[in-house]
């Protein structure tokens, strides 16, 4: 069931007051509104994930971790060894297996022998986000934006280079907790950190006009709707739409979510 909301200013304010409102004034209403849909034919998560097409919007889906890009065309990049299955259990994010990728580089050497090292990595691994994680120096997130290699983030890396440390670091850099992967009437398929989705009764605020933003600005917390978790499996969850902001018809795939942390 969807509730239209006329008092947008009441519901969607800044992050600093988000948690308070969600946990106090809104809580009863949210839960009351959620109950019927939670037991009323929410799409089966497995089926939905299985039929998921390439979602639109600016957000990481498939990452490749490198120590360094190759210095010149045709050379093999230096892959960061990372436990893929452990990493993928922690969130909706998928990562390129470094061993497969290294071998794919060798198999496709001729095709990419003249390509720019970044383009070669993206072309061979099909990663949408390249994480360059040197042992010393700043870490960088690289993406192809409008056909161009773009550094979308450059700064300190995580304290510990483990799947957990990197996952926490990534979401801290992105400055959001989840992303809408797909949309069906009244329901959203959401990708987030697994640890967040494990909590019961979790609600999330969809941030207005965030579909095209890879990283949210520090104070960017204006909401366009409130959603509530109905089913989850690791880093993917089905949320039902609780309320939408004034004039908001739907929450588009690619929209970023801020989740209740407590």
């Amino acid at each position: 069931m969807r509730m239209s909301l006329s008092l947008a200013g009441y519901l969607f304010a800044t992050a600093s007051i988000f948690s308070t409102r969600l946990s106090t004034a809104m809580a009863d209403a949210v839960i009351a509104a959620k109950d019927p849909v939670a037991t009323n034919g929410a799409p089966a998560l497995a089926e939905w994930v299985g039929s998921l097409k390439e979602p639109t919007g600016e957000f990481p889906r498939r990452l490749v971790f490198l120590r360094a890009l190759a210095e010149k065309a045709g050379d093999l990049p230096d892959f960061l060894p990372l436990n893929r299955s452990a990493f993928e259990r922690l969130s909706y994010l998928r990562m390129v297996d470094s061993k497969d990728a290294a071998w794919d580089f060798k198999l496709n050497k001729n095709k990419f022998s003249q390509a720019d090292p970044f383009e070669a990595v993206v072309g061979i691994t099909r990663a949408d986000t390249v994480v360059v994680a040197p042992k010393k120096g700043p870490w960088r997130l690289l993406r192809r934006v409008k056909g161009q290699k773009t550094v979308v983030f450059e700064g300190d890396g995580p304290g510990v280079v483990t799947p957990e440390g990197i996952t926490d670091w990534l979401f801290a850099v992105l400055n959001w907790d989840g992303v809408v992967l797909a949309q069906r009437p009244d329901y959203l398929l959401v990708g987030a950190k697994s640890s967040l989705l494990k909590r019961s009764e979790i609600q999330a605020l969809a941030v207005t006009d965030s579909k095209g933003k890879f990283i949210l600005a520090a104070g960017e917390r204006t909401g366009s709707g409130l959603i509530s978790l109905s089913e989850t499996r690791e880093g993917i969850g089905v949320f039902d739409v609780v309320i939408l902001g004034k004039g908001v018809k739907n929450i588009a795939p690619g929209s970023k979510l801020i989740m209740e942390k407590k």
Partner: protein
Amino acid sequence: MAEVIEAGSIRIQLDVKNSQSLTRVKGRTAYFRHWEVACAKLGKAMGPKAGPYGLGAFTTYSCDHGAGMPYAKSLPPKWLLNIVDGKEEARFSLKHLDNSGYSVVTEFVMPASTHTLEFFADDEFTDMIAYALLDASPMGMLVTKADVGGSPPQFTGRFWRAGKSKSFKYDVPEPPVHLSIYRLRWDDQEMQWHSESIGDARQIKVNQPKEQKQRQGTVLIGGGVVYETSEKVVRALAFGSLWAKTAAGPDHSREETTKSLRRAQIKIAAAAQSGELDDFLAGRFDAILKILSGYGSGYAGIRYGREALLGEGGLGRLLRKTSVVQGVLQIRNGPTQGLRYSYDVVPRTTLILPGIVSPVEASIESSRHTLGYSYEFDPHLLVDKITVEPKVGAWTFKGVLPITNDEHGLVADTANFALNSALSLGLEVGLEELSDWYLMRQWYRVNTGFSLHKSSGRVVSNQFGIDAFFTGGPRISLFGLSMKSAIMAFYFCDAVDIFLNRQVGTVAGDDAKITAVGFTVGYAGIGAALSW
């Protein structure tokens, strides 16, 4: 859509359209008979586990000489090996069928020969071609569930030389030590290969083959390269066969492989050109001695070089002005094979040097006839040929050389040094590297000459140098013979010591007698040759 790459079929096709120039020369019937043999041998050598070190990806093969007759109505095979036996080159292109048609996966080129298809009568040569193609392809050694056994799990690749003559004719690379084991897919949309790495394998031993005497000679039987892998690979094999390939990746050794193949081709081409291919295949033909049939049965040439070292003092300045002219004749085939003759002349060179009293004229000239006989053998390592050449000759040297200078560098005294037709003995050791278009030779030579004249003396010369001989020039008809022209380049360094049986001066301020002079010259130059 992704296509899982498993062992499949290949069509081996002779591109007749682009090979026509050769078919005209050779006559169609014989040519296509050679083609049938070549295709069959190559098809077998590219079968699963049949290639060197177990490489092999094609369970079946078909042969087509491009006329479209036998296979026009059949579905196009996923894999095609297109062979252009052209006038300029022989090109082998391994192609894969994708949504844009046949795309080249790998290819390599050999210099053209009117005998290219005949080379495939040699299993060892065929193995090298198969290796070059398979090593560069994304597939490798097919590993099936049945191949792997034991604990820890092991499997065995074919020993390269298994089934071949004991006296192997070519250089081959070592078996890979580390293998990557993977599943392979082709993505038609992305137009690229994707792998799923399953595990690794490590070479643990090489079982040497046994020797078996057969009618055609001693043949190596069995043997193998044993690899140890992991249980993970065994589990994955339950879901289908896998590929194993050197962990360095496809085509990692192209340069080395191409070089080996070129050397093999030069050897077999030499045999074919001499009409002795059968002897060569049976190991009764020493290809290396015939290898220069590519350069003819011999060659004669003339070279000119200038002194290239920076000499000091009056003698150094004199030597700087010198040049050398050399005539060379080498017989590399036939009854007099091995004979070498050279005639070196340093034309008379003079230089007016400032003296203490008045300017003095210094001069130098020499000539040397040398006759040698070259003993040659193929070391099968690093170089193609090692030569050892004893020499005998006559050496004439005349010079008025500055022997003492004052503290200002002015010539205090000169002396006559003369050796007339001194008998000369020498020994030369050479290392030769051969290609289809050049011969590179490094050598060291020691000569000593002595005169029977009582007032004369002896001379010792230590030389080392490098000679290059580049073929490819135009053909010239001379004395009814068709000769090939070639360019030569050389550099050699010569340290000469002349000892006289008489005193020619004294050291200034000392009573020490001067009876000898020593100097070093280095000549660099070019020349032209004709081979027949």
